[in-house]
């Protein structure tokens, strides 16, 4: 498994297809009361459809896209969007409201009460807020991105897979710009419950967070005069489905990666390496940046 931590010539970028970072952003915390979300919306009305993951995703994508100088550019329409979504975004208050009205007179669950009164307690928009493809939808809507896309779930291994696919698509000129990100709503009660079930997860550092990278070929960045923040040297993946499950891992690790990269850029580190080791099912990944 150690080979996953070594740069490989197979995935490393050749000089002709050097991939560079031109935009990066991280957003953390619960944005739902924040007016800052509105700055990124084409129409404020769309906010009623948005859950926490959606808002975090739109904010981080907006900041990264703006940082890359791409907001409002025609070229963004054909950008590839590669987005990884975290676990189950149901809200406790809404589920409890359903549950309260789904009981019979003996305080037992009743399908009749659930179907007639319980489900009336929630707004129909709950359905949309809980679909895992919605963060990608909101990014596409608010920044005019028509794809292609890759929407994956739920952890950092999927983020690394998406990042690798974005690099392939850039090198093969299937896309000119790649917007690669991840979002996690981890102070969610269902995530709490899920993590409690696996001993190794209980002590995990969790976040409500999103992170986004804007990538393009160096030649593209040069031709449009974009500021290059870093160069991606390599992305490697390793996978052993026979490895012990549930060591740890969650989508926040994706944002750890991006946050760490952002800090490294601020420190002007010459090299940044992110290694994701503690993942379910023996998933290993690393990112090498200059």
């Amino acid at each position, binding site marked *: 498994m150690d080979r996953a931590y070594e740069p490989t010539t197979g995935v490393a970028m050749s000089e002709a297809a050097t991939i560079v970072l031109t935009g990066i952003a991280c957003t953390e915390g619960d944005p739902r009361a924040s007016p800052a979300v509105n700055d990124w919306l084409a129409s404020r009305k*769309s906010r009623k*459809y948005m859950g926490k993951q959606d808002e975090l995703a739109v904010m981080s994508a907006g900041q990264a896209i703006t940082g890359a100088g791409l907001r409002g550019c025609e070229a963004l329409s054909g950008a590839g*969007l590669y987005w990884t*979504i975290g*676990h*189950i975004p149901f809200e406790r208050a809404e*589920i*409890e409201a359903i*549950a309260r009205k789904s*009981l019979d007179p003996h305080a037992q*669950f009743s*399908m*009749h009460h*659930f*179907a*007639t009164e*319980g489900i009336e307690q929630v707004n*129909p928009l*709950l*359905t*949309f807020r*809980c*679909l*895992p*493809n*919605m963060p*990608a*939808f909101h990014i*596409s*809507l608010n920044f*005019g*991105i*028509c*794809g*292609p*896309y*890759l*929407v*994956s*779930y*739920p952890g950092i*291994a*999927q983020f690394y*897979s998406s990042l690798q*696919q974005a690099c*392939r698509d850039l090198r093969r000129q299937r896309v000119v710009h790649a917007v690669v990100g991840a979002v996690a709503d981890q102070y969610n009660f*269902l995530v*709490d*419950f*899920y993590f*409690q*079930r696996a001993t190794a997860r209980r002590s995990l550092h969790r976040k409500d967070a999103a992170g986004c990278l804007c990538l393009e070929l160096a030649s593209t960045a040069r031709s449009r005069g974009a500021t290059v923040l870093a160069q991606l040297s390599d992305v490697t*993946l390793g*996978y052993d*489905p026979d490895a012990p*499950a549930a060591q740890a891992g969650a989508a926040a690790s994706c944002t750890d990666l991006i946050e760490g990269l952002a800090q490294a850029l601020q420190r002007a580190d010459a090299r940044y390496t992110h290694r994701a080791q503690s993942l*379910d*099912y023996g*998933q290993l*990944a690393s990112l090498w940046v200059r």
Partner: protein
Amino acid sequence: VVVTGLGVLSPLGADLTSFAENLLAGQSAVAPVSLFDARDFNTRIASEVPQAWMPASTVDRKSEFALRSARAAVAHAQASGAPLSGGGRAGVCVGIGLELFSMPDMVKWLEMEAQSGPSLHNPADDFLQTQADACVHDISREHGLRMMPVVHVSACAASTDALGHAFRLLRDGEADWMLAGGADSMINPMGFAGFCKIQAMTGRNDDPQAASRPFDAQRDGFVLGEGAGMMVLESLQHAQGRGATIYAELLGYGNSFDAFGISEPHPEGKGALLAMRRAFADAQLPAASVRHVNAHGTSTPKNDPAETSALKQLLGEQVEAVSVNASKSMLGHLIAASGAIEVAAQIACANKGWLHPTINLEEVDPNCQLAHIVGAPQRWQAGGVMLKNSFAFGGQNACLVMRVG
């Protein structure tokens, strides 16, 4: 990139032969919901995989569907030629649905938590179904696949995206063979409640077998289905090297966003058209080469005319010569699994020399005029080019171009 194995676990068959025979016979799988008491829901019908086909111990239906259809696809691929071997150049891409939970167990859990505080050993701790992505690791383990699996969650386009992603990995030379497809089941109280709330499903409860009627003037929503379709995809060289039977060739893949509405497609099918054009460009074929379209065809008021509009823009006058069918008329809407099961339906039927009809299409909506296959199956000329469309809530569109038969 070729298809050498197909596996299905569907409301119309747990094996490929009965699945294709039922489709060609125009059989509907829609019936009153049996998996839970749905009598008080606005919609009370669905397209279920019969309980008799499922082990009593099933905890999570979509995971069971995925595992069994993957196993069937590998067995089918190995029915001819040398066995497939796993390793670092083989992997799995799956489109999968939303993780849901048992509402009765959730109620118990909330009650117990209120009484005794958070507990790590709560007896009601089964309320979450298996983590949705767990099945890809089980599939990888069972078949020795060592490439990082990819879990697509682009809703109703997810399994078409999974097939397209696997196709790209093979064509780019990153893999020798891939398992790809999708699995889903939202036939449970939370899934039903969600779709009832947004009024996406049919209300034709008294006539279940006629309820799913894509492109018909009297359509009023989709019928929820469940199941899985998985395929073995190989590079042509790899398939020939082991002497495998080839059932279809994938030629191109494209996807797009509408960047328009959350629940409704762009009325002129702008995003759908972009995905179709991208798929043909990827295949390096003109759209005029297509002979048949397996439509997304949900039977919802807004999807079907938008898809029709996109096809007319894509094909121009030639649209009248291109046959169209909608598998959801018989299978219902398998959500994340719909694309893969419908691709499997086309390949299974076309390899018998036929295309299945769209059932319940009695009066074509004036805004949905296409060369629909109605009444009886239509002959398929081997080697023709097909287009498969899948469109999702949130305007995510995925299309595949393939040569079949």
